[in-house]
């Protein structure tokens, strides 16, 4: 098979028409990873109802794969139980996008990390809530 050159069709689709763009005011969970200095920054906002991710939004600064992976991870997580969503890995996101160029696997594939940060943030808030 010929080596894949550049981005897959699916990456370009998600880059051009990303799903779930925006912010959620007063989110139940918020995750932020990356740094503008490195060229990638992602924010994910979640609303959780009965342990299910009811709504999810993202904002991303970065290259094509940074935007496409953000869009894809929100699609994968929406409607999922938070413990299941926590298990979504970087590789799952890349696979769903029909792969990413090798040099993009590390630097621009942070979306799963951002989602996990958002879920952790939600769980932390829940714990504090329970103690009260």
């Amino acid at each position, binding site marked *: 098979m010929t080596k894949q050159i550049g981005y897959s069709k699916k990456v370009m689709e998600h880059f051009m028409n990303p799903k779930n763009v925006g912010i959620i005011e007063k989110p139940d969970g918020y995750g932020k990873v990356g740094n503008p200095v490195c060229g990638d920054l992602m924010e994910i906002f979640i609303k959780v109802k009965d342990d299910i991710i009811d709504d999810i939004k993202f904002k991303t600064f970065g290259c094509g794969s940074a935007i496409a992976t953000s869009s894809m991870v929100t699609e994968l997580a929406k409607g999922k139980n938070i413990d299941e969503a926590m298990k979504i890995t970087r590789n799952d996101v890349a696979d769903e996008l029909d792969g990413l160029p090798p040099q993009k696997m590390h630097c*621009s594939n942070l979306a799963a990390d951002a989602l996990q940060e958002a879920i952790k943030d939600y769980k932390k808030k829940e714990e504090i809530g329970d103690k009260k």
Partner: protein
Amino acid sequence: MLEQLCGFNGMDMKRIYLDHASSMPIDPLVLKFAMPFLTKNYENPSSLYSGGLETKRAIEESREKIAELINAENTNNIIFTSSATESNNLAIKGTALRNIRNGKNILASAIEHISVLNPMKELQKNGYNFDIIPVDSNGIVDLNKLENLLTNKTIITSIMYANNEIGTIEPIKKISKIIHENGKYLHVDATASAGRIPIDVQDQEIDLLTISSNDMYGPRGASALYVKQGIKIQSILPGGGQERGLRSGTENVFSIAGMGEAARLANNNMNKENYRLKNIRDKLIHEILKIDEAYLTGHPNKRLPNHASFRFSHIEGESILLNMDMFNIQISTGSACSSKTLEPSHVLLAIGLKHEEAHGSMVITLGRSNTLEQAPEIVKVVKETVNRLRKLSPLTNLR
């Protein structure tokens, strides 16, 4: 048929190509001129029978045309190589190695092309002292620092004629005066400028000059290095002794002959084409700078006539490139994500941009396929691209 092959007329009419610094189509007239050297006149220029003499003659004619373009004192001072990268390597390593008895100090500006900086770094590993001359925020070489860094042991200093990423044209005449008062030889990389703006190696007192074929609508696979009369350099590619023993290997007659013809045509059309391109460039700069937090990179007026480069806050260059490409407009960027090293452009960092600023760069280099009529479409797509990416960016409050 020829025009279809050449792409000028065969090119998708809707496509707007704005990346002439990275590649250009071959001029149909150049292709027509050089084509016989691929088919009919294939003899080796080193052969002594009539066919060989004919290809040899083609190379010498090309040498004359290139000497004329840069006002070289003698056609013998032009050496053909395979690429601008090779010419830069030959200029730097060839001069430094041959003149080691006169000193081991070498200098380059911070915004030189990687094919100048890397040979210098290689020499540094082998015991040479390599220093980098800083530039100001417009990309102009710091002349005081240059003077301070020069010693009588500085055998070669490399400064580009104009920069490919920010378009800034360096004050070469001033620079050569300073270098010749203190150091030894000045190498000028004119890849982005030869055939585009006037260069006079005698008047500007340039010792070595790199010229690229493809950057003036010539075929790839040819480049020339001008070496001033009397300067001794060493071959970095020993072999059969072609090109006065300075560059061995059977000559690429097609590309060399084409390069000469491209140089002649570029010389003839320069003033008219410059005037035309400047018009488009200034229109684009004027309109694009109306975008919020859009900034010009490089010098506001000492810049190449075909060059417009920008940076936009809060967005990233690879995304700009991909988004513009979806609208059939091809641009370039100095963002980290688009580079092999995943580092932002060293040129943008050298002019003082922060990493996060350098990530949002966009470079437009115009050429013959561009017209003033394309400007509104280009501006529209740039605006839409910046706007869309900013709405996605967490660094803005846009919704």
